[in-house]
């Protein structure tokens, strides 16, 4: 009985998270455009454009991961710009701090994403599956989706760590 309740609660929670992830992806991607570009006009153009890219991308989880990739790339670009504008005094220390910040963000995001991927790939007995259609969709996700997400994350990490 308790496991059934937990299952139902998990299903409801997953449902809410799915809906929230689409909304969060839109917010994240617009924010990423505004932090990436100094040119306000270009930032606004990209914010709307990237919001449409997120909308065009299928699957709520992929939308969220794509938005996270845009945020990581924007943080990296912002950090690189900040470092390049620093006066010569203290460049080494400040540059290292910016690099550490980018690296830490990347590591945290990667760990969160990896945990989610692992959760998606863990086989669960059918009897323990909550009766939510969204959870059933997650369980039925084909392998190529997780590979695509993983590929996005790896490239985003490359972007964040290179240069």
């Amino acid at each position, binding site marked *: 009985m308790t496991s059934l309740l937990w299952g139902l609660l998990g299903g409801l929670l997953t449902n809410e998270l799915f809906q929230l992830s689409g909304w969060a992806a839109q917010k994240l991607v617009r924010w990423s455009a505004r932090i990436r570009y100094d040119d306000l006009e*270009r930032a606004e*153009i*990209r914010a*709307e*454009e*990237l*919001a*449409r*890219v997120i*909308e*065009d*991308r299928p699957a709520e989880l992929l939308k969220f991961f*794509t938005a996270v*990739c*845009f945020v*990581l*790339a*924007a943080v990296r670009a912002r950090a690189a710009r900040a470092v390049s504008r620093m006066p010569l005094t203290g460049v080494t220390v400040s540059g290292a701090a910016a690099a550490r910040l980018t690296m830490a963000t990347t590591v945290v995001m990667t760990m969160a994403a990896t945990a989610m991927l692992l959760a998606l790939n863990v086989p669960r007995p059918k009897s323990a599956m909550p009766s939510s259609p969204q959870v059933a969709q997650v369980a039925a996700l084909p392998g190529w989706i997780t590979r695509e997400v993983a*590929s*996005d994350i790896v*490239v*985003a990490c490359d*972007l964040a760590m290179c240069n």
Partner: protein
Amino acid sequence: MARPARTTRPLLDVASCLLRADFRGTELYGWQIIRETGRTGPTVYGILDRLEDMHWITGYWDEQGSDDNRPRRRFYRLTDDGRTQVRELLAARRPEELARLAEPGDRAPGLGLPRGSIAPGGAQ
């Protein structure tokens, strides 16, 4: 005409994708370029930024689809100078791909909207 400081594989992929659309007489929007090149969104948009800065491409808003509350799409096409530069770049770096693109068989309609179906007066 500006030239790219670094010619990377993603740059060649995006340039090739835009030239292919140019041969087909179509225009592409961001998600289509991401899908056709197989590159990630941030990579593709980094390249599009560089190509726009060099005036190799120009972007137009899709005003036809702006009636609903969804964000608008932005379509990209090569400029005249951009077309020349991309051809030169591909001829130097990927000659076999350029030859394949120039074959008549590759001009079949594919992804993208036919040229002229978008109002070029959209905000830059």
